[in-house]
């Protein structure tokens, strides 16, 4: 309890100084993975030593478990892992730890562990210490198939992150996004799913027509998205394990902007079947649709609020697009944004304290958020053509699509605008990121 409090105090002074550049490296035509490089250290991120784990038995080639944990913690922007070359000793269990050494190196926390291979499985034993208090905060074991050490690493990162911050870790979650390569008749759209560090990319859908707006079901098993493969926008739901797809909305006009209800039983979507763009809810069991908005203006980009009863949506009923909220379907919409003439695509924070959206200021588009208790708006990105904000499920990080030096990238920032890293496209464009849920 006390170290959590101390951590939060440190975090309050946290400044935006972590920059991790992540490069998309082509590894075959259909698969492409992301490589992370830390280009600048964080100034006030929490120092933690992740000691390379002791190993017994054959370990698979590739990144080690402890190096995966290190890069996860660095990527969060909240931690500054110590380089192993600077360590004075490499303990793997408590009896080998000399706290004085780690204090001298300025470390707040220390993670040690060992890996043991038995058959196809790799078992990890790991312990996390508070260096100042000389206390063990965490001691656990976890195992995974040898082919799946990345999952083991991400799991340990989640446990460490949770033990120190009190917030759920998101290192085991997935990203969905769309890449576009080629041009003209050779243009290809790929719907891809990867780890949050950009590794283990898998193509889920390839098309020569646009794919957009992927949305994760709350159980992480399905993606809803808009595909133009039939020549017009149609909403599909795609089962990730089986690859089975279902057209859920193929009405005349627009079928777009899918967003799941928190219980996963219904989908918000924008249809224009009754004349112009309105927000509807479709029950996934019966396919029955209910209209939630009714206005001659454009109403779109519906998203459930954290209560699961009200919705945010975009409407240009005031003349330009603005964010509105309805306490419940059919209630009088209340306008949320007033700061500029263009505010769209609301994404509510999981605690109900903030709503995030695309915000035009002068001639640039940024991601901004409004504090829902006092209406105060703040711009949280410094890039200039920002779109498609998506929050991590713990509400700490936000991913969005933008351009850096003319290149198309996905950028991750902390939800208050702090630390950031980027996932550039190797070629062409990368867009429409959607952060998947915690599925444990």
């Amino acid at each position, binding site marked *: 309890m006390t170290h959590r409090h101390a951590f939060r105090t440190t975090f309050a002074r946290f400044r935006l100084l972590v920059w991790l550049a992540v490069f998309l490296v082509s590894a075959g035509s259909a698969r492409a993975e992301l490589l992370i490089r830390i280009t600048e250290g964080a100034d006030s991120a929490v120092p933690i030593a992740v000691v390379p784990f002791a190993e017994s038995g054959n370990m698979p080639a590739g990144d080690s478990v402890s190096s995966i944990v290190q890069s996860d913690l660095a990527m969060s922007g909240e931690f500054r892992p110590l380089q192993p070359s600077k360590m004075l000793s490499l303990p793997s269990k408590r009896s080998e730890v000399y706290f004085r050494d780690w204090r001298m190196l300025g470390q707040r926390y220390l993670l040690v562990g060992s890996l043991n291979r038995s058959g196809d499985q790799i078992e990890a034993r790991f312990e996390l210490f508070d260096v100042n208090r000389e206390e063990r905060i965490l001691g656990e074991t976890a195992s995974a198939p040898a082919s799946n050490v990345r999952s083991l690493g991400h799991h340990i990162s989640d446990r460490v992150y949770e033990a120190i911050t009190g917030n759920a870790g998101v290192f085991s979650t997935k990203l969905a996004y769309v890449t576009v390569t080629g*041009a003209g008749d050779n243009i290809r759209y790929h719907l891809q799913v990867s780890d949050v560090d950009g590794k283990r990319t898998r193509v889920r859908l390839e098309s020569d027509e*646009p794919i*957009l*707006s992927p949305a994760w079901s709350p159980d992480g098993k399905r993606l809803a998205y*808009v595909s*133009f493969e039939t*020549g*017009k*926008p149609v909403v599909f739901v795609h089962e990730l394990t089986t690859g089975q797809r279902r057209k859920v909305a193929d009405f005349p*006009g*627009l079928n*777009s*902007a899918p967003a799941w209800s928190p219980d996963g039983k219904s989908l918000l979507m*924008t249809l*224009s079947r009754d004349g*112009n*763009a309105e927000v509807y809810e479709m029950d996934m069991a019966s396919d029955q649709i209910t209209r939630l908005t009714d206005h001659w203006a*454009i109403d*779109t*980009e519906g998203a459930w609020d954290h209560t699961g009863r009200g919705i945010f949506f*975009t409407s*240009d009923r005031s003349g*330009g*697009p603005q964010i509105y909220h309805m306490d419940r379907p059919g209630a009088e919409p209340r306008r949320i944004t007033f700061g500029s003439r*263009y505010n*769209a*695509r609301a994404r509510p924070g999981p605690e109900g304290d903030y709503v995030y959206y*695309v915000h*035009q200021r002068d001639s640039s*588009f940024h991601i901004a958020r409004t504090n829902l208790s006092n209406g105060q708006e703040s711009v949280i990105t410094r890039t200039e*053509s920002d*779109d*498609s904000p998506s929050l991590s499920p713990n509400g700490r990080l936000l991913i969005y699509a933008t*351009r850096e030096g003319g290149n198309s990238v996905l950028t991750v920032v902390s939800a208050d605008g702090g630390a950031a890293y980027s996932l550039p496209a190797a070629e062409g464009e990368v*867009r*429409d990121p959607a952060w998947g849920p915690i599925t444990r």
Partner: protein
Amino acid sequence: MKLSLSSKVFAMLLSAGLVAGCSSTGEPMEEGQAAGSDVEAINQEGGATVYDGADGDGGVSSTAMTDEERQAAQEEAEQSRQAALRDVTTFYFDFDTSEIKPEARDVLIAHARYLADNPREDVRLEGHADERGTKEYNLALGERRAKAVQRFLIVNGASRGQIETVSYGEEKPAVRGSSESAWAQNRRVELVFE
């Protein structure tokens, strides 16, 4: 390159169309001679490609024409004028609006008349937005642009059954790039005749 050329042609046809519109409502010969500057403007802008038949007919011997001949010539001139107008099939919009620009009206009226005269012809209206703002709002904006054109065509004689609309939002830019001129060329509705 391709686009800037076609928008130049578009502007040219519009100015030509407006001038021709004036002269056809007045006395052809006298009006033509009096309003010399207008005629020159047509010639200078290469109106010959557009006005081949009309200029020839008007110039040779209108006094010798019978009323029927004159009417036939006028109809022919009108038809080629309409056909020339219909060469333009892309219409542009201002940022975050779906208002049809005044200079697009004559061309759209020509398309509407063509559809009214050819009830078996179909057209697809493809609405687009520039890359700025959100993808889903732009999808709705592209649709609203296509529907604005659809309404205009129907009001001017086309029937609803001939017209299909689809929005691509910002997904299919005509021109790549993030400049004001690229954006201007991407905010558009394209008429596609099957």
